[in-house]
């Protein structure tokens, strides 16, 4: 009779391994958690871009760009390709500047890159690109696990946040079954659960209807986190502290939202006249 060991070997191996390894697993090392102080204590109250050069695909995007703010709610506007997306990616270390330095509350985004995910939360335009787990609760729990909670505790935290939001029933729902607005809400919650000090949102509302925008905006405003929001819908900047207009890698205008929007709209009108 032919040998059929190939099949039984798998489960058998798991039996042996189970007993052997459960003995060892107590000795598995967990990474040591360290706390770091900001590299630039004098900048600890603000977000700071200092003389940054950045090149993208053979052309200079930023040359000697400098920008600093400590307002809680700041907006960023500009045409497509103006450098907004690159600018915000500098702020959590996804992109490193070629020259100059970027710091968030005094922490260097390059030299202290390892702590950026705990400091800066990032919401992307398309929620389908950032949800990495099959169900809502897993998606939320991930952030807590990243911050060192055990799997059970992380799930408990996730369920608590869902309950607080009145959406407990979403917990085990597959993320593919959520509407666009629900998906973006889950994305925002899954970042807020990590309690970042700066929350960056890169056109998070572009595919959402007005009521959903307002719901999510309220969600963001209810935190004490600093917010940097990119949006093409200027109505969301109503109660923002400051608005920055970027154009071709330069700061074109910077100030109160009303004024900046007015000058932006004026320039768009001029442009259409010259067309």
């Amino acid at each position, binding site marked *: *009779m*032919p*040998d*059929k060991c*190939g*099949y039984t070997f*798998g489960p058998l191996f798991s039996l042996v391994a189970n007993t052997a390894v459960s003995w060892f697993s107590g000795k598995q090392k967990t990474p040591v958690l360290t706390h770091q102080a900001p590299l630039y204590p004098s900048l600890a109250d603000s977000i700071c871009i200092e003389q940054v050069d950045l090149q993208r695909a053979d052309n200079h995007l930023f040359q000697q760009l400098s920008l600093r703010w400590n307002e809680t709610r700041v907006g960023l506007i500009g045409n497509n390709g103006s450098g907004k997306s690159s600018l915000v990616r500098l702020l959590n270390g*996804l992109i490193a500047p070629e020259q100059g330095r970027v710091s968030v509350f005094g922490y260097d985004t390059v030299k202290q890159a390892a702590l950026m995910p705990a400091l800066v939360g990032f919401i992307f335009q398309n929620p389908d690109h950032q949800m990495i787990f099959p169900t809502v609760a897993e998606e939320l729990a991930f952030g807590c696990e990243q911050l060192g909670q055990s799997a059970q505790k992380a799930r408990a935290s996730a369920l608590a946040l869902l309950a607080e939001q009145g959406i407990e029933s979403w917990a085990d729902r597959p993320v593919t079954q959520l509407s666009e607005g629900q998906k973006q809400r889950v994305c925002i919650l899954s970042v807020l659960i990590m309690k970042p000090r700066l929350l960056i949102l890169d056109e998070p509302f572009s595919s959402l209807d007005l009521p959903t925008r307002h719901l999510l905006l309220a969600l963001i405003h209810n935190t004490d986190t600093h917010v940097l929001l990119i949006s093409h819908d200027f109505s969301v900047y109503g109660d923002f502290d400051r608005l920055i207009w970027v154009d071709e890698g330069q700061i074109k205008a910077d100030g109160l939202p009303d004024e900046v929007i007015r000058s932006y709209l004026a320039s768009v009108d001029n442009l259409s006249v010259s067309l």
Partner: protein
Amino acid sequence: MNKDRTLVQIALYAAVIAALGLLPKFNIPVAGGVPLTAQTLGLMLAGIMLGPVRGFLSVALFILVVALGAPLLAGGRGGLGVFAGPTVGFIVGFPFAALVTGLMMQQLKNVNLFAAALISSIVGGIIVLYAFGIPGMVAMTSLDFSGAAKAILVFIPGDIIKALIAALIAQSVLRAMPGIIPSR
């Protein structure tokens, strides 16, 4: 960044292989009425597109998720049962097929892409795969070696067509996204 990228690439390519298997429309009817699916095409492409190591890991991940209970093998098969079936050798051989395809691509760096991909797919996706599949069948079915070999001979023409298609696909993808294939 690099580590995360690699992880995501491996996982998403495994998802591509799953997508290929879930679509019955890709069945290629051949002699004997044995349906051939695009799934083995997926292994060849894993080796070509990701290279040997990531290709191997990606297909291994796919097999693991199938074993955990996802019905992602062509025809909606999945679960531990597939490891008790006559095709267990093929399933175990899947990652190695991708590995060898990737290794061959590296060896054939200086040959033109179409030819390199075709040869690599035949060596990895057919010869290596059958080297696992036939002994697997012998072990599981009490057929002797030549019997098992004859029983699966009907798949060969379809597999050669698939190797050709894999090479054509690799060529088109490289044209659309230059630099995307690791050995080029």
